[in-house]
């Protein structure tokens, strides 16, 4: 079952990195699966997709290539949005300060992207 696969993918990510929550979101802003606490994941999903797509448009304007990730650095937490294949993205909430968390997130996003394209 697909839902279990998403659960496993996000569970793996949580086990490997110091994160507080994560969502798999379609590129156009619809929630596919979430593992979060005390937030409204649909809103978070829509806004994460807006972050990534706005970044893409801005990057395109300066011919900067495809953005690898969008990081929103808040006082208490960070949001990290990474593309996961052509149709989805991975949005992560963390308060970790070490940058090695990016590697883990990017790897996980790749796995999710591969998984989604296998399904097609």
């Amino acid at each position, binding site marked *: 079952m697909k*839902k279990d696969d998403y659960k496993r993918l996000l569970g793996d990510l949580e086990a490997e990195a110091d994160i507080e929550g994560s969502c798999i979101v379609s590129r156009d802003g619809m929630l596919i699966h979430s593992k979060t606490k005390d937030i409204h994941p649909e809103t978070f999903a829509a806004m994460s997709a807006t972050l990534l797509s706005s970044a893409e448009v801005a990057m395109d304007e300066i011919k900067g290539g495809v953005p690898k990730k969008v990081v929103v650095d808040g006082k208490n937490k960070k949001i990290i949005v990474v593309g996961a294949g052509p149709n989805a993205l991975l949005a992560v909430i963390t308060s970790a300060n070490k940058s090695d968390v990016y590697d883990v997130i990017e790897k996980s996003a790749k796995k999710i992207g591969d998984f989604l394209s296998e399904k097609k």
Partner: protein
Amino acid sequence: MILTGIPKLDEFLNGIPEGKSLLFHVEPGVEESNIGIHVLHKNLENGLYGIYVVSESSPKIVDKVFNEFNWNLDKYDNLIIVDGYSSLIGAPTDKKYVVEEPHDIESYEDVLMEIIENIKGKGIIVFDSLSNIMDMCGEKKTLSGIERINDILSGEGFSSIYNFIAWPYKESVMYRMKRIFNAIIEVNNIGDTIMRQRMFIKKVDWSDSEGKKLEFKIFKPEGIRIYIPKISVVGPFYSGKTTFIKSIAHKFTPVERLGATVGVEYGIVDYKGYRAEIFGIPGQERFLPLLNKIGVSSKGVFLVVDSTKPEEFDFAKKILGEFKNIPYIIVANKQDLPNALKGDEIKERMGLKDATVVETIATEGKGVYEAFELMANRIVEDLNAR
């Protein structure tokens, strides 16, 4: 009239006439498979009798499900639970009506007849689940019993609902099922990534809605909703998109700076059994690249225009051009202002004579729900035309 409580479905079916039987034929793996209990609740609310036959798990399941949807169990003295489970595992039960021999369909028949004799009034019987009873009592024997039960019920003002998980049964069993139920609705998961389910009216012998489809999702605690994953709201700058979304959505996240929308807004509408997620896209031309990123895969589009600004209609039409083959409705907003053009005039000037247009005053919430309902209906029609 007995209703399912699922709005569009009731419109398609015209309710469930007395004496008719309806089978929810659910594909294994559908997470929320207990549609019968929602129909039960609806009819309890309407003051009819609701008989709930539990065979698959302890009758405590009823408390649990009622709790999940914030339905108050104690409120309904018209609810009768038939316990087909406790005898099976030898557990004590506080239920008045107990199936003593759960391996014998006649034992079910006996209890049901006893209930029907004891009460006066109409209502529905929900079996949760038929597949389980078939496994217990034998497939063919169960179906013969069900035929007898349906025969008797038809004279007593009761309709019957069967939850059925469609494990691979023998051809001959499936064939017989097709014959004995007055209506069969298939329930499947939709294969793409956004979780939702589909109902498909496979058979109905009292209305002409065979072949109709609905996409739905069960929300807790709200219940069953016809589900629309995305409706976009677009239109020129300052036409009233944000105000429009705010006036129909019960949850809304504006993204505004200096009074203008500067990012994608998101809201949820829950109205007349529909649940829709609304994405608002800012109107200033420089934000248009967001249209094809976020607007794609919309099931419907609201084009909001300021009815006093015909000079913007060309631009409005250009925005609309970004959406191909998606149902849209023109929202002719700001009708309270002097010089506001009427809906027909706007269609005419935009060269969209066949379009649907709704006149609104978003600031006062006038016309907005009418627009939403038209849109929701259009989206269901569109799904059924595909």
